[in-house]
């Protein structure tokens, strides 16, 4: 098992999987969920800002491009805690990206 290649969670050329990763780790918490539809973000431009933040956090070249190095970094084993805590985590809420009573 230690030598098995784990299934990559972020796929090359898959903006959707990259967006899921960026959301999971807190990079997109500033997004207004009420006014932004996810499909608007599913473009290279839409995710560029967030990809850049991730690249900066990971100490990579900041290009804003979902290049192979960025995908590789996103597939590195890591801790499940968010990198960005702009919004607090509600540990027991189903809406894990929002800190609010709702």
């Amino acid at each position, binding site marked *: *098992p230690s030598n098995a290649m784990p299934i990559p969670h972020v796929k090359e050329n898959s903006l959707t999987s990259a967006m899921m990763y960026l959301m999971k780790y807190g990079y997109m918490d500033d997004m207004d969920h009420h006014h932004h539809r996810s499909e608007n973000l599913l473009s290279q431009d839409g995710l560029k800002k967030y990809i850049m933040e991730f690249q900066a956090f990971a100490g990579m070249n900041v290009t804003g491009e979902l290049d192979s190095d960025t995908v590789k970094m996103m597939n590195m*084993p890591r*801790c499940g805690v968010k990198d960005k*805590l702009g919004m607090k985590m509600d*540990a027991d809420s189903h809406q894990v990206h929002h800190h609010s*009573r*709702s």
Partner: protein
Amino acid sequence: KRFALQGSRWKVKDLTYRISKYPTSGQMTKQDVDGEIKKALDVWTDHTDLTFTQKRSGRVHIDISFLEGEHGDGDPFDGSGGTLAHAFFPVFGGDAHFDDKEFWTMESFRGTNLLQTAAHEFGHSLGLSHSDDNDALMAPFYRGFEVKPSLNDDDIKAIQALYGVKSSSNLASSLNEISSNEIEFDRRDSETNHILCNDARIDAIFTALDNSTYVFKGQEYFKLVDDSIADGYPRKISSDWSGLPSNIDAAFTWKNGKTYIFKGSQYWRYTNKNKDSGYPKPISKGFDGIPNSVDAAFVWSGNGLIYFFKNGDYYRFNPEERPPVKETYPKPISNWEGIPDNIDDALKYTNGFTYFFKDGNYWRFDDKAFKVDQANPAFPRPASFWWFGC
């Protein structure tokens, strides 16, 4: 500075931990796991006066468990690779979870090194967020096996910002009982501080017809927004709630859109902030069977009926029945498992849950189980942080 502090820390330095669920597979025995976890915690004691003591049962500060998939906290694990583990900051309980589907190893380049991963996770348990310094232990990515993980300068600055530098000699101190008072929060900017941050006890809380939630305390009242107090509050009750006195007892809004506010032997009725004519009226007239000077009044989400709490008793009021309070009442509040006597007030919030408030703390109720919600972190929780934005 590359490190990040989440904002909460433990107030006590003698912390306890328990490994409540060991890995179910792999090459490590329970003794191995105990040893590696201890070493992982020692990484943090080297630079602070923190101490960690393992307990085999009972409540502890940091609960450690090896779990797989969805395991109850809304953040499921994903099998081998990917997410290895996560941990909760002190304000959320401090527990650490490890993905049981990883191949945990010790002193080996194979598999996933438990010591390295655990040392990182315990940083979160102590209040540290991720660092963007790739050489820091608190960088988010797994670095692989290291003979002895250690803190770099960024990590040391972070942990000492929370717990101070290690003193030359540790004074003996007794283990502390765990309570919500053992967690401390950073004070925010002064504009977000208000009286409820110093004293979170309340007189009453309710949601009005327009879905605004209000907290009443003394001569003032507060309007709540999503995670704190609305700008411009607190305001004087007398300024906005015509005819309403200070220091009210309880309040609730009924399905007719009217808010009923109680004090002593009287009650007032409002539509949002507009007082209906003819009020106040005696409680004995409008709420036959309900005593004066109640502690709390709320509409229970479980059945939509009105409940009044006073001292150690509660009453159920059904305006569609005669009499509205059955002879079997009052009943003991102890029936509401986990809810204390003499509460300050209760509220059916806009999210559908019923919350009980007392002495600055609150409990969320699980209507189906008919007991306090078994969540992490456990209830009671401090209302100042979770409700009032302190």
